[in-house]
């Protein structure tokens, strides 16, 4: 089965990102494909490079980066939602005259078309949000 996963909320504030991560892990362990994980609304905050969570708790962002690396996952942050919330890659930062970029490894910024494509190409689209 090919899964598309949508994450609508940011790390720590809601359990959405955690639930999505556990689901993705279980799906991969069962031999399924995760076509894309699309982060929308505050979900784009899962892609920040600047997170410094306490040592005794999970590192939500890093966990996604590691899962992406291990399984070659496509983690996409919606560009419009990201711009609103101050998540910029190097190109976006330059284009918009900002003095820094802050995207974590394994994430890329792209348009809403990627969400629709995931909806069309996946066998199942599972949404985690508030």
């Amino acid at each position: 089965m090919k899964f598309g996963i949508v994450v609508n909320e940011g790390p720590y504030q809601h359990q959405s990102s955690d639930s999505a991560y556990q689901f993705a892990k279980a799906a991969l362990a069962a031999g399924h494909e995760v076509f894309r994980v699309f982060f929308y609304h505050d979900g784009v905050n899962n892609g920040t490079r600047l997170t410094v969570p306490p040592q005794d708790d999970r590192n939500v962002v890093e966990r996604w980066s590691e899962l992406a690396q291990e399984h070659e996952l496509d983690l996409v942050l919606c560009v419009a939602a990201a711009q609103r919330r101050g998540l910029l890659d190097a190109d976006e930062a330059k284009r918009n005259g900002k003095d820094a970029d802050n995207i974590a490894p394994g994430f890329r910024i792209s348009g809403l078309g990627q969400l629709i494509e995931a909806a069309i190409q996946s066998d199942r689209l599972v949404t985690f949000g508030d």
Partner: protein
Amino acid sequence: MLHIVNKSPFERNALQTCLRLAGDGHAVLLIEDAVIAALDSTEPAATLKDAMQRLSVYALGPDLAARGLSEDRLIDGLEAVDYDRFVALACEHDATQSWL
């Protein structure tokens, strides 16, 4: 259809609306705070029990455990499942719908 509900019935009307709009023979999976609805002792339990005549209802075990809720307090017939089964349920049904 696999309906996924993640908010407590005391916080949000998501479960109520889900039950109103879920078709006969569909499945409902309670995750995150929505596992509260799976307890036999709550006020809204009657509505869920009623809906279970036409829907299969599940609760995510890890979310129950996280909230200190033992599986023997669940509504009779409501099954606790793990993430592996969550994935399997998503495969078994032809689509998923999240009620946020």
